[in-house]
């Protein structure tokens, strides 16, 4: 396999007394969907946040193309080609759909905003995601949970970033929108993007994951191949040890197999 685009090396992150991430190693490759699974509170969103520049790790480093980088802010990560959909979506309720989609990187015509270009691009992206948003000039507070989520996903795809980090992007989507988002993830992979997908949905994982990283209590518990059975994953996430859970194809045998405190 090619060299990873984005890597975490020994990354740790605490929130007060909570150790959200402990000595995490992870690699994200081109042409690959890396799924991240784990129980509630396992540190998945924290991992996504570190990758997307929302959190600075306390220890360890982030490598982009093998070189250490500091992702000081989501804007900095974005500038380096890493975009994210955060679990809490991070939409501004008072702004409308177009305004939210382009927030922070608006299209301009001279010094002024180019509303026409932005609105057209917004429709294109939303249609691609089969989003059923009635109007793009509605404040997002008026949208349903699923519509908001589609808007957040669409925003991450703007400007075709190299790495797309998606934290539970399908959690409140309907069947059709979920299928479209998964389709899109597959298309992103085909186009050579790297995708990090945090998800609880077994269906999502089976459909798109190339590798599955299992987090438990902030540690990388195991890394499975994409075709790992859900029972194996469940066992790894919850710690119910099942003989044979380690598949021969696993890229990184979990370093912390015995962690259970």
């Amino acid at each position: 396999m090619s060299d990873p685009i984005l890597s975490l090396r020994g990354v740790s992150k605490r929130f007060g007394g909570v150790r959200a991430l402990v000595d995490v190693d992870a690699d994200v490759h081109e042409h690959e969907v890396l799924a991240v699974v784990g129980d509630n509170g396992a540190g998945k969103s924290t991992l996504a946040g570190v990758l997307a520049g929302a959190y600075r790790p306390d220890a360890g480093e982030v490598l982009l193309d093998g070189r250490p980088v500091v992702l000081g802010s989501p804007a900095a990560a974005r500038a380096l080609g890493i975009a994210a959909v955060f679990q809490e979506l991070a939409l501004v309720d008072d702004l409308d759909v177009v305004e939210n989609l382009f927030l922070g990187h608006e299209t301009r015509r001279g010094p002024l905003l180019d509303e026409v270009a932005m609105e057209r691009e917004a429709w294109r992206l939303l249609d691609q995601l089969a989003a059923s948003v009635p109007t793009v000039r509605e404040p997002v507070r008026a949208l349903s949970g699923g519509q908001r989520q589609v808007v957040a996903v669409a925003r991450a795809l703007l400007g075709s970033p190299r790495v797309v980090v998606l934290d539970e992007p399908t959690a409140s989507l309907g069947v059709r929108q979920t299928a479209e988002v998964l389709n899109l993830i597959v298309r992103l992979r085909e186009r050579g993007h790297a995708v990090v997908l945090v998800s609880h949905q077994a269906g999502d994982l089976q459909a798109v994951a190339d590798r599955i990283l299992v987090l438990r209590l902030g540690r990388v518990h195991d890394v499975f191949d994409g075709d790992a059975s859900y029972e194996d994953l469940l066992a790894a996430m919850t710690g119910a040890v099942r003989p044979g859970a380690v598949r021969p194809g696993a890229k990184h045998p979990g370093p912390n197999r015995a962690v259970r405190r």
Partner: protein
Amino acid sequence: MTAQTHTTGSGLPAGGALSGAVWQRMRGGSSLLPIVAALVGIWLILGAVNPAFLAPENLVNLTLQSAPVGVIALGVVLVLLVGEIDLSVGSLSGLAAAVVAVGSVTLGWPVALAIAVALACGAVVGLAYGALSTRLGLPSFVFTLAGLLFLAGVQLRVLGPLGSINLPFESWFVRSVQQGFLPAGVAWALVGGTVVASAVLQVVARARRRRADLACASLPQIVVRTAVLAAVLSGIVAYLYLGSARGLGWSVVLFALLVVITDVLLRRTRWGRSVRAVGGDRRAAMLAGVPVRRTVVLCFVVCSTLAALGGVLAAGRLGAANQGTGGADTYLVAIAAAVIGGTSLFGGRGSAWSAVLGVLVIQSIANGLTLMNVDQAARYMVTGAVLLLAIIIDMLLRKRREA
């Protein structure tokens, strides 16, 4: 004054389906519509009680009284939009007035230099506030309260033992603020230019949107909007230049210009969008990649600079700077004006035009009650009641919108 123009022009219910563009403009205008109605109501009542209130010359006075505090309120709108507040704008305006007077009279600087120094003082104070807010994370309510006291002290120290300094009447600055008026011909040319420009811009925008296959305003809508704009603007100019009335003072023109510029910046630039995003949801804005700190700092700087400019205009209007300049209720009037004009105290929602409308409401009440020989006490009480009413209406409207 041009305020009404804008709101009636852009907030006009289009009838039928709301196309994208119209909807967008309506959202900007929707919070302004009730306050325009309230302002008209207040004028009708005051005019009915005392016809002298509606005399052209009195309305000219009203605009002249409104300009300095209006400029300050415009700055307050910006800090409110970004979810902060500045309680020290009054003291700062007083300090700026003192700097202009001391600089140009006591120290003998050219007036322009004294004004520049005063504005620079404002910018520096704003920069300090921005740093306190974004670097130390202090609440602006607290540090601008400290600033209020501190700057009032500095103002007294700058003015020195005399406590009052008169500006020479013959200086170009005092003359233009007190007696400088836009010639009627120029005012009419401006009206014509504005109406034509607005129509052209709307037609061009419509053509672009049509080519892009996006919803756009219909031609009749554009015609109606342009007609309303033309009617309101020419109504204002015709009235203010009626008979011996002096018309639009330079300070009023400056205020209107600043409002138009701020309005365009807020609605049509990346910076303006950042301001609304940061005020609406700071964390979401940060995660979306908005430069939150820079946006907040800039709002404080612009607010303080405008507050200083308001003080400069007040000094010019009074022909003097004294210990009372910018004192007492200045900051309360400025903040109340922004809120009465429909800018939310909680950030994210508001418009540059709310400074105009809010100030006109407050100054109309003050002016009208003064004409009726009502004392200061009653004026405060009425203004307070209006502020409360404005907040209640704002809340009710917002609840309905969000329901």
